[in-house]
């Protein structure tokens, strides 16, 4: 069993997302430790991209801040190497395909393996195009997380069947961002996926507080929270450790 899937054994998993290098690499490094301490089961680190088409305004702004502050993927590889001295939580990179392709896919995977990244989430690489990343990733033992959306419909069966790590269930239409209400779409999607796969299902896009997380944990194996945390980082900047810890702790308790 993979390290990522392993994290889901016997518990509901909190999967936080933070944008790497926002406001700077040092803060991101501290935040990863803080999230692990608060009980996150898997942690997503975003590699900032110039044109993040699947993101809402909160993460778009974080990407712009991080790039302006000089964040590069090389700096993030070094950061992960340092984190791996003491952090054992599975770590994922989330980024757009050109950040991988432009760097050189094989070289990118090699670096991921060296520094201790467990998996990748690439939102602009749908099932049909995923083949060109899967082969080199699998060679390095890196898992690629698949996404399903409310509009995926019967694609869910095919995607879910071949998913690995966990299945990222996008709870609503549109882009990432905090939403007041989450529809019943996510529950339906998870149920449909679970008919054909044993891969754990985690729900993301729009989850912003402990109540919503608890609601999702009733039917899903994991809860992904991004924009709500990134918003805290935007507000508290280099002093965001404590607020992020408190927030994360709240989510972990709500879903346990």
């Amino acid at each position: 069993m993979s390290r990522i899937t392993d994290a889901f054994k016997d518990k509901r998993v909190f999967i936080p997302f933070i944008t790497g290098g926002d406001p700077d690499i040092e803060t991101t490094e501290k935040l990863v430790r803080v999230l692990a301490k608060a009980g996150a089961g898997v942690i997503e680190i975003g590699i900032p991209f110039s044109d993040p088409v699947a993101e809402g305004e909160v993460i778009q702004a974080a990407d712009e801040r991080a790039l302006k502050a000089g964040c590069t993927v090389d700096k993030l590889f070094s950061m992960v190497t340092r984190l791996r001295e003491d952090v054992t939580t599975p770590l994922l990179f989330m980024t757009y395909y050109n950040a991988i392709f432009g760097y050189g896919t094989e070289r990118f995977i090699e670096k991921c393996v060296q520094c201790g990244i467990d998996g990748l989430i690439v939102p602009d690489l749908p099932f049909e195009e995923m083949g060109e990343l899967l082969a080199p990733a699998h060679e390095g033992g890196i898992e690629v997380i698949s996404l399903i959306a409310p509009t995926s419909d019967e694609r869910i069966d095919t995607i879910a069947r071949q998913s690995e790590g966990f299945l990222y269930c996008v709870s609503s239409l549109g882009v990432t961002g905090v939403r007041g209400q989450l529809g019943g779409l996510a529950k339906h999607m998870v149920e449909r996926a679970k008919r054909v796969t044993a891969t754990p299902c985690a729900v993301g896009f729009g989850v912003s507080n402990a109540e919503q997380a608890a609601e999702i944990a009733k039917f899903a194996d994991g809860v992904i929270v991004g924009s709500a945390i990134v918003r805290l980082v935007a507000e508290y900047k280099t002093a965001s450790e404590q607020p992020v810890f408190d927030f994360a702790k709240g989510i972990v308790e709500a879903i346990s």
Partner: protein
Amino acid sequence: MAKIKICGICRKEDVRYVNSALPDYIGFVFAPSKRRVTHAQAAELRSLLDSRIIPVGVFVNAPIDEIAELYKSGVIQIAQLHGGENADYIRKLKDVCNVPIIQALRRGCGDSICDLADYVLFDSSKGGTGTPFDLGDVVNTVPHLKALLDLRGFFSSDKAEDEGLPSQVKEDNAVRRKKDRKDTMVLSAEQYMCDKPWFLAGGIDAGNIDTALSAAPYAVDCSSGAETDGVKDETKIHALTERVRNEAKRLNKGRFGQFGGQYIPETLMSAVLELEREYLKYKNDSEFTAELNELLAQYAGRPSRLYYAEKMTRDLGGAKIYLKREDLNHTGSHKLNNVLGQILLAKKMGKTRVIAETGAGQHGVATATVAALMDMECEIFMGKEDTERQALNVYRMELLGAKVNAVTSGTATLKDAVNATMREWAARMNDTHYVLGSVMGPHPFPTIVRDFQAVISREIKEQLLSKEGRLPDAVLACVGGGSNAIGSFYEFIKDETVALIGCEAAGKGVDTPQNAATIANGRTGVFHGMKSLFCQDDFGQIAPVYSISAGLDYPGIGPEHADLFETGRASYVAVTDDEAVDAFEYLSRTEGIIPAIESAHAVAYARKLAPTMDKDKIMVVTVSGRGDKDVAAIARYRGIDVHE
């Protein structure tokens, strides 16, 4: 993404094989067959079956209670009916247990069965007519499956129409219909198309599964093809399942060489797949084509003139120069060709709202125009920087009833406007069509936009043949994303003697940081849904680009251009701001034609190229738009303060 069913599972070994290969469905046959299983056997096999595989029960005229019992006890999850079951039978079965149904189609089973079933199954080996026909037959006809079935007498949809008529009239009607259908099958097949997901069965094996998959069924159903000596073969089951899986990952969808593809978030996939399906349905539909041609003629003012620029020719002293006057289209650019096509398509698809990105504002104006004409709600996304450069066009779009959103993210130019429009589409695709303005983005956009712009080169060819009796030696057009260029090139791609030259924006020079010359400075990347050439840094971050022309200020190029460049069929040159402004003034003074600053890039290169060509050579330059919108900006470029 086809699925696969392995039918006739009857031994424990068979279950072990499918558990490791994981097909989508397996079938237990409860009807007389050498693979028949009893209820008890099926229940035992079911208990060993991986929960990810859906078990289907295959029946021929079975008692309803038998199916219901197997379904309720969980031995099967779907019932596949192969006998003389009628609509009444299916209704009763649905009443008792609501089991999903795969209905094998047979002669005379009627439309109502198709309506009641959840899936249909088409057995190509028998087809219900008693006349065997092979897979090739099906494949040639699909996706006109229903038309084929109709011809073979599967449906009786004319009954209602004929109700109450004397029997002689009915017979005459039947004969006439049969003849009509044969004559018009290909043209009007879509209207007969069966809209239920369909299984294709009948002798599918490793040798013909590719052909079967090319017919794009919902699922393929394999039985004897997965056997050796009459029993299931593990290797064959694995091979067939793998083949179907790989088909879904095939990298050839919407590809131009290595370029193109569909690199978009899963949230958008259903929208582009719907668009692809609908476009294929309408592109050869005679009614759609007639409507579009009428609009192009009466509303856009096509064909656009192919004008012999005599003064320019004389002045440059080389090749004979013709200007393709897309600037004479309604709204003043080639953009309208594509917009009319796409919004007509959107209308047919039942959409009520259109959204679009725009750079210079030409595409935004064209979209707002056609939206007004066709009663569509319209929202345009435009980089904030561009809304300032092209303030008049913003007002123009608002005047036409569109809402214009200024995009402030990123570099606040065209690429950011595309990002914003994609985000908006992902959030609202049910009633909304994204009218992409260039030959870029995820498949099928580069193909759709090219097809709608190809009218330019079709006309050039026809007009030049009638004026000169021959093909041109060179065709020049400016390239941002590349829609007027591909439109100007397309008909000539196979005519190897015609040089195709795209003129991209070098801004302040290809060696300065301020340019938008993708071919000169870009490298292969993946962005905005496509694999193509992009201006980017070492880390794959998309580079900010610059050009005096907002319409060419884009960091990428359409995938078909990338392929034409890579294969050497077309060449691309870079033209600076200075050269373009000079050409803008030159064409105004020489021919009394003020070109768009974008088109002036092509004119600029024509000025360099024409004198190097012999006088008996012919060059066509596409003037993609008119320059009224640029006059104030050019004045400012020359240091004259003109207020719009």
